[in-house]
């Protein structure tokens, strides 16, 4: 596939046992043998480099890229040092590292291209590189795994790799180094009797491998959270989001499970994915219109946004990380200096807004945040809906989404003001449209004139219908 930036992709386990302990366990030996099949497969392909993402190379301040053209060291795994030493002498594509770092920098993340003698390359990358590319036939590129990154961010880091490859005019073999289930045996074991440490983990691993076998990379990425929760997948299985971002969030692959074995109780698999359509970078708009979940958004704010931290710092129950210490020995503590709002939830009702159509308030205050219920264009005490024309049977005969959107915004202002907040304090908006294709542009124009000037984060979703004959509904979170 001439115009594809990815020749093929692999998910491999980076356990040192596969490289160093194959003689100790039939399971580990099997994995080493299967690794060799992948190596042969890679050698039959035309690619410019191997691009690695290992869940064992963790970064906490942005992202790191290996920038040493010839890293060379003798590495011993911190856990399984009894297996021996891994000597390595790799060849790195530092141009690609620089191009990749540039793309990630443009996304607003801190990046570091590391070129230091003795910088520790992680066990997983070493294992994979030594088994897949033992003679440095292809140069390697390596990016770190953001410890705190969630789905959206990790997917974008994968997509940034796609753009780096595109701008460099290079084709890569993509390798995700990650275990499936990651529940280790915590005692010494007989390697010959190694087994997946939990039946549930085993079942989940096999379910995920079935999806891989179908080549459905995007589907695996979608179930990653559930998989991680159920089977303690390696680093929340976030590596799959990187691979999925790099490979264009698609199921257009043929999949092959080369092997699946236990390594010290964990699930170690070797999977291959060959694109059936050329992989090309997606436009960034694609990502902006498919934002992550609400939970991710709130967590993201808590982790990174200094401005939002100020908001959240007193929202005790929103983010438990900001809970204050209990007042042990209150007599010796200046209570005033430690006292904060109770943080208990409080319902907000506005007499200027349309009556709810169910058992819910217009808003609920939680700590220092206001969570507004979904708001439509209806007006209080009136059956008429701005921007909606109905016939005698109550069927819609015409509507104007701009008028509806303006009415929604008036309603939002009223709730916020009645709650003691203001329109300017909105920090996040979810938009529900019943006809994205027809209405998005018009809606967006009104949005740009109003909320767009404030600049909250936004998610826009098309829905089948809304509870009343309306075309648009907004749900917002604001600072109280």
């Amino acid at each position, binding site marked *: 596939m001439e115009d594809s930036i990815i020749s093929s992709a692999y998910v491999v386990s980076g356990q040192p046992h596969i490289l160093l302990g194959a003689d100790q366990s039939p399971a580990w030996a099997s994995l080493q043998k299967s690794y060799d099949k992948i190596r042969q497969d890679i050698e039959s392909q035309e690619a410019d480099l191997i691009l690695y993402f290992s869940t064992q190379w963790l970064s906490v301040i942005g992202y790191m890229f290996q920038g040493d053209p010839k890293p060379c060291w003798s590495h011993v795994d911190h856990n399984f040092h009894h297996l021996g030493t891994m000597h390595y002498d790799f060849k790195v594509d530092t141009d690609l590292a620089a191009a990749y770092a540039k793309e990630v920098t443009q996304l607003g993340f801190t990046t570091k291209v590391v070129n*230091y003698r003795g910088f*520790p390359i992680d066990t997983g990358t070493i294992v994979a590189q030594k088994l897949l590319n033992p003679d440095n036939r292809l140069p390697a590129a390596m990016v770190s795994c953001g410890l705190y990154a969630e789905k959206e961010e990790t997917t974008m880091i994968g997509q940034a790799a796609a753009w780096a490859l595109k701008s460099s005019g290079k084709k890569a073999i993509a390798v995700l180094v990650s275990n499936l289930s990651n529940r280790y045996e915590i005692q010494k074991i007989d390697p010959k009797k190694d087994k997946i440490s939990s039946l549930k983990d085993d079942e989940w691993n096999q379910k995920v491998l079935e999806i891989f076998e179908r080549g459905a990379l995007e589907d695996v990425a979608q179930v990653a959270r559930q998989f991680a929760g159920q089977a303690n997948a390696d680093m929340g299985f976030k590596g799959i989001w990187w691979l999925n971002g790099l490979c264009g969030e698609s199921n257009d692959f043929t999949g092959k499970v080369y092997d699946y074995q236990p390594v010290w109780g964990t699930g170690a698999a070797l999977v291959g994915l060959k694109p059936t359509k050329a992989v090309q970078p997606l436009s960034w708009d694609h990502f902006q219109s498919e934002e992550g979940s609400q939970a991710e958004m709130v967590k993201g704010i808590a982790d990174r946004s200094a401005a939002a931290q100020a908001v959240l710092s007193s929202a005790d129950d929103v983010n438990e990380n900001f809970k*204050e210490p209990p007042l042990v020995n209150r007599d*010796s503590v200046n209570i005033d200096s430690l006292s904060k709002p109770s943080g208990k939830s409080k319902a907000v009702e506005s007499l200027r807004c349309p009556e709810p159509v169910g058992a819910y308030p217009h808003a609920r205050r939680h700590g220092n945040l206001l969570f507004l219920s979904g708001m439509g264009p209806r007006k209080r005490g009136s059956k008429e809906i701005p921007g909606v024309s109905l016939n005698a049977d109550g069927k819609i005969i015409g509507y104007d989404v701009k008028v509806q959107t303006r009415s929604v915004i008036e309603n939002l202002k009223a709730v916020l003001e009645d709650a003691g907040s203001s329109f300017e304090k909105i920090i996040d908006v979810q938009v529900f449209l019943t006809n994205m294709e027809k209405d998005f542009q018009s809606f967006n124009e009104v949005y740009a004139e109003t909320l767009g000037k404030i600049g909250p984060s936004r998610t826009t979703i098309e829905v089948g219908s809304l509870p009343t004959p309306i075309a648009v509904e907004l749900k917002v979170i604001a600072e109280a």
Partner: protein
Amino acid sequence: MAKGQIVSGVLAPHPPHLVYAENPERNEPKAECGWEVLRWGYERCRRNVLAKKPDVLLVHSPHWQTIVGHHFLGLEKFSGLSVDPIFPHLFRYSYDLTVDVDLSLAIAKEAEKLELTTSIMENPDFRIDYGSITSLHLMNPEWDIPVVVLSSNNSPYYFSNEVGQLEMMKLGEATRSAIEKSGKRCVLLASNSLSHRHFTTECEIPEDMSFEHIDSHGQYLWDMEVLKMMKEGRSQELLDILPEFIDNSAAEVKAGALTWMLSAMGVPSYPAEIHAYGTVIGTGNAIVEWDHEKCGGSY
């Protein structure tokens, strides 16, 4: 042979920034200044501790994390270059250390008696983690006292804070027992910071102190509460509250070093001396000394 004893216990955090700012010959990167309050605190603590002429420094660091039990360095000599995987631009340190293998093996043996899993690390290519190196350097930059390096078992991450605490309490008991039998004068270094939520960006000049502050007010309140307990000799209360502290301020003591040390010292009820508190990229760090020889009572 006289009964061995723990002469001091020190909460000895390991931000590599402190070594970087000090400009020791062994570290490649050089700084203009930085984090002086913490470094001065380390200097004061170091004077106290080294004046006791200890035979061994024992360090428990979260950056040698092990899954299968508790590991100990088991060769007499280790040398190499420690490069911090997160801050390689600050910390590339040439180390050359001597291990008290006898004491290491003795602690492992005592730990096994308490049904802890142990392992002795005997691969000469093994690279010592930067956390251990940093705490050891800051406490004894001359490196002229043998060390025992213990790994950090990851049970609190794997199971829960409470399970991790129980493991570390046992490891502390094993450590105390082995030390008593060894006849040696020992210093325990708990290589942990306090609150550990940190910035996700860096400023251009790492030692630019105008950038430095606690990551959040909640963290600061927690750190102060915990330090107050240390200062008032309320170690048991501190251990009781530790899981909550860990959860609410992402405290690094989750890794167990502080629990190990307090357990080894019999959960001291005398006041600790706080030599310094300061932040490093938003995390809370304190250098706290328990003068166990003077105040411990049991020896």
